[in-house]
């Protein structure tokens, strides 16, 4: 068994047994948050790492899904219908985001997605009749798939872990597929890709739709986990956070966004209990990552391991 498989098996075991060894409901909820933000970061990094498009508007899509679930449940829909509607509405919103923002790339793309995200924040804040404005909306109950209630933190974590594993597998299949290869090509040489017969815009649009789907899944899980949704979920910081998570963990890798989400969520929710200036600490961590592992923690660690192995191989044997 290779070292990579051993690490993966240990990670799976640790994740699957979180409710058994993590003390208290609060920390189990933090573990759920880590998985939810990992899905959200995968969604954002699909565009950053594989399409070369930095979105600062994904908080808008995440909150669109969360608000849709909350509004639908408030209107008397069942959980299944609310979830399906949330995915459909978010995909429709994603199509609008993509159609508008993919008219350009680079800074132009960042600015359009930022503006669209801010529109979503403005709607959440000002459309009081639908969103409750500053007061937000409560989610009255959690679903009970196959008769298993997700009301407890432990059960909700287990359900989140299953969804996370499915998303991670789908993501892995997607980025390693023929379409994933096309997508990476549009990131590196869009002009060349057109000359090779690829529809660059449509490839980016399809990737944006899958990214929107993952954002919707994360948003729905978040609404159920927090049992509340309010305008800060759609704010600029909500869009910027997954970008930072992706970059710090390692953009364009599968595990990087997961590690980035783990790092930020632990500092935000765990270290903040002991350190009042946790924001400063998080900033310092980002600076250190950028200085010493500019490619992110996962690829940076892999580089260090390779270097150590090479040094060991070169060392004279006595």
């Amino acid at each position, binding site marked *: 068994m290779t070292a990579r498989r051993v690490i993966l098996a240990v990670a799976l075991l640790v994740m699957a047994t979180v409710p058994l060894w993590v003390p208290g409901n609060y920390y189990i909820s933090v573990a759920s948050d880590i998985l939810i933000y990992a899905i959200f970061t995968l969604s954002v990094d699909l565009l950053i790492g594989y399409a070369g498009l930095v979105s600062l508007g994904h908080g808008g899509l995440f909150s669109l899904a969360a608000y849709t679930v909350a509004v639908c449940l408030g209107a008397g829909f069942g959980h299944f219908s609310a979830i399906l509607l949330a995915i459909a509405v978010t995909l429709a919103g994603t199509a609008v985001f993509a159609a508008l923002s993919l008219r350009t790339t680079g800074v132009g793309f960042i600015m359009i997605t930022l503006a669209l995200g801010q529109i979503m924040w403005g709607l959440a804040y000002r459309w009081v009749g639908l969103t409750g404005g500053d007061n937000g909306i409560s989610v009255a109950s959690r679903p009970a798939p196959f008769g298993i209630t997700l009301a407890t933190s432990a059960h909700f974590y287990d359900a989140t872990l299953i969804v996370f594993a499915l998303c991670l597998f789908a993501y892995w299949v997607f980025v390693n597929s023929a379409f994933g290869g096309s997508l990476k090509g549009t990131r*590196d040489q869009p002009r*060349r890709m057109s000359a090779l*017969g690829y529809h660059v815009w449509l490839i980016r649009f399809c990737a944006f739709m899958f990214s929107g789907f993952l954002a919707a899944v994360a948003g729905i899980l978040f609404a159920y986990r927090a049992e509340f949704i309010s305008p800060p979920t759609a704010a600029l910081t909500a869009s910027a956070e997954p970008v930072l998570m992706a970059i710090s963990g390692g953009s364009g890798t599968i595990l990087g966004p997961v590690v980035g989400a783990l790092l930020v969520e632990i500092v935000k929710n765990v270290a903040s209990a002991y350190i009042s200036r946790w924001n400063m600490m998080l900033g310092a961590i980002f600076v250190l990552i950028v200085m010493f592992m500019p490619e992110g923690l996962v690829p940076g660690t892999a580089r260090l391991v390779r270097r150590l192995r090479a040094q060991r191989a070169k060392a004279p044997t006595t």
Partner: protein
Amino acid sequence: MTALAVRDLQKSFGGLRVTQGIHLEIAPGERRLIIGPNGAGKTTLFNLIAGDLRPDGGSIALFDRPITRLPTRARAHLGLARTYQIITLFPKDTLLRNVTLSLLGLSRLRWNPLARLDRQAHLIAQAESALARVGLGAMAHRSLAETSYGERRRVEIAMALAQNPRVLLLDEPFAGLSIDERGEVKALLASIPRDITIVMIEHDMDVALDFAERISVMHFGAIAVEGTRAEVVADPRTKEIYLGE
């Protein structure tokens, strides 16, 4: 029938007229050389033919099919392939992946989000064959970053040939190559079968003149002289364009 017909092609960048009423008729299987001083509009002409730029006027036809309004990707599907003056490859990938991407572009598989790209044995076999054709078969799994400039030029040609083109546009394929590498690329171009029409821009007259059957000399965005190698070399306008009056 013409393989490539360009009629009255016009393109301006602001007030600068880059191509002015260009006419070209290239027969199937022909080897056409386009020469001209820097700034004559040769690469702009290629960009217009390939679809990277939209012309302001005029028309382009590929095997009598109008392609003026078609996007670049559609022209590739109709059998138009090109190489670039500045090498445009996928630097993070292996040579094999570069050529595989070239083949994938014309396959429906490019839209498949479920099929693993590295498990497409038929595409990989074709890519290996294309690399072997340009003498890079043994380096297929090497990263592009570990290759020389001359090898990258050959990868560009392998990618274009892998598209199974009917018309191949080569933009300065000998630029930046050593004498040995030029010889290799020259032999490679000579081995391309006649069912592929080749239009080439080149500054290196020693290698290019041997290759071309007909030559078009561009000057200030227009075709100033056109004819066989002997006719163009003998034409006083050619000397005037290159050496001045």
